[in-house]
């Protein structure tokens, strides 16, 4: 059964396009990465799913129920973590979490203890005194405390240190193993790669592609910078998968998509002073491969 299903979902803010014709489905038990550059429509899609905003046309269902019509009912089983977290500032963490828990017809105190323990979140502190990272932790706990079937995360990891990020991903994997479904939006490809089963790519409000993680990894995007001893030969790298090739004096820079062995053999033929092979940012991938 599809947990989330959108059909031609479109949202315009007046004349400004938010998203257009977004059709996707998320299956039970899967982690779907929803990636795209800033302003691509990730948050718009999520806000429609949560009926914070209403679609201009098209429809979305969660657990088979229309999000506009059955919003409150659906939300019993949704945990949401916004990208930026703001809470009632004069509250203590414990009070806020208890307030959040009061909306669900179950006892959440055990989960609150468990998750805050895992994240090392001090429940007695005032929200206004918390650092950004700690507020994010409050965001994680308030989103998961009612043990929801569907977890929606909007760029969740910003502000978390690497160790906490690891703990957080462990937590998500546990949820997945417990049969929960996760919708994970991000603009960082590597983050999504670590954890997602499939990836939906959105750009300028339109869904470009949905790929399985294996396929995306196979594609293996690399940004390559070479500094050669002699004047660089521009002909060497004219092969499929290479784009944005720039050759200048003894500098070569390119984007590569494909088998890494092919490119490493080519590089090995050159007398190098220095080389950098890194991960291109998402913007670059979009610019050169998803036009």
């Amino acid at each position, binding site marked *: 059964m599809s947990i989330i299903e959108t059909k031609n979902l479109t949202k315009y*803010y007046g004349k400004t396009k938010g998203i257009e014709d977004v059709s996707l489905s998320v299956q039970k038990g899967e982690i779907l990465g929803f990636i795209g550059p800033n302003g691509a429509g990730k*948050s718009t899609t999520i*806000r429609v799913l*949560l*009926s*914070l*905003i*209403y679609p201009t046309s098209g429809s979305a269902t969660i657990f088979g129920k229309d999000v506009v019509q059955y*919003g*409150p*009912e*659906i*939300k*019993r089983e*949704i945990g*949401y973590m*916004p*990208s*930026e977290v*703001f*809470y*009632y*500032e*004069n509250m203590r963490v414990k009070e806020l979490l208890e*307030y*959040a828990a*009061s*909306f*669900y017809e179950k006892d959440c105190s055990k989960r609150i203890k468990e998750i805050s323990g895992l994240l090392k979140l001090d429940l007695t502190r005032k929200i206004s005194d918390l650092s950004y990272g700690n507020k994010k932790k409050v965001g994680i706990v*308030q989103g998961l405390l009612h043990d929801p079937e569907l977890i929606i995360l909007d760029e969740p990891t910003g502000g978390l240190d690497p160790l906490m990020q690891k703990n957080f991903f462990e937590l998500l994997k546990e949820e997945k193993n417990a049969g929960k479904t996760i919708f994970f939006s991000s603009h960082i490809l590597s983050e999504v790669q670590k954890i997602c089963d499939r990836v939906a790519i959105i750009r300028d409000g339109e869904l470009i592609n949905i790929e399985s993680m294996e396929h995306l990894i196979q594609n293996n995007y690399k940004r390559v910078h070479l500094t050669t001893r002699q004047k660089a030969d521009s002909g060497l790298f004219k092969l499929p998968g290479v784009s944005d090739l720039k050759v200048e004096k003894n500098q070569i820079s390119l984007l590569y998509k494909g088998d890494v062995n092919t490119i490493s053999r080519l590089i090995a033929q050159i007398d190098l002073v220095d080389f950098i092979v890194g991960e291109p940012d998402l913007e670059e991938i979009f610019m050169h491969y998803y036009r």
Partner: protein
Amino acid sequence: MNVFLLELKQNRNSTIAWIIALIAVAALYISIFPSISQNPAVTDIYKNFPEAFKKTFGITENSLSVFSGLYALVLNLVLLTGAVQAMNLGTGITSKEVRERTADFLLTRPISRVSVLRQKLLTIFLLIVVTDLVFMTADWALIQVLIDDPFQFKTFITSTGSLFLVQLFFVSFGFLLGSVLPRIKSVIAVSLPAVFGFYIVGLFDTLVGEKIKYMTPFKFFNINILTAGGEYEPGMLIYVAVLSVAALIASFVVYQKKDIPSL
């Protein structure tokens, strides 16, 4: 009832402050009445004040010699103070989640927007009723202690009761603005101009004539008549009720359909 309880808690301190302010306004004027009413020199000075000044502060011929006259003056200021409180409360409570960026937190819970608004409405009505009951008790006590020849209890209740009716209008009007306007950054920046705007409109009563009573809450009821033992006009009571209910219904309709702006 969780939203109701939270709002009650979060608005408790400001409500206490407003109650104190209302009592202070009344106490100040009531306490000086015994000394000025028996001092012809003071009344003469006030008589010579410019017309515009007297008008702005609601000073009439017998403001300073008869208690019912002075009480009309007191009530004028009490209404103004109470209006600001009510407008702040109404505007504040409906615009709060967007202003404080807690809309995402609250509205992604399994609760309908109607229920959120209903609980907020309940909160502000309770707070206004409590404010008025406490204020009126203190006000009556002050009058009993300080004034030798106070007016009847019925006259007191009728005239001071206009505070609740005026607040009813402002709380509903604020509730509407808070729901309709997409993003209110500062509540006071909306509520003060609205309240003082209406107050200023009320100053043009001689110019506008009888119809002024439909144009500003400060002229819905003729305070001078009420403090002198008069009654409400039934038509005006209906008018206030219709306006308030219409504003509240519109709030619910708009709030349910509006897009919540993102953080």
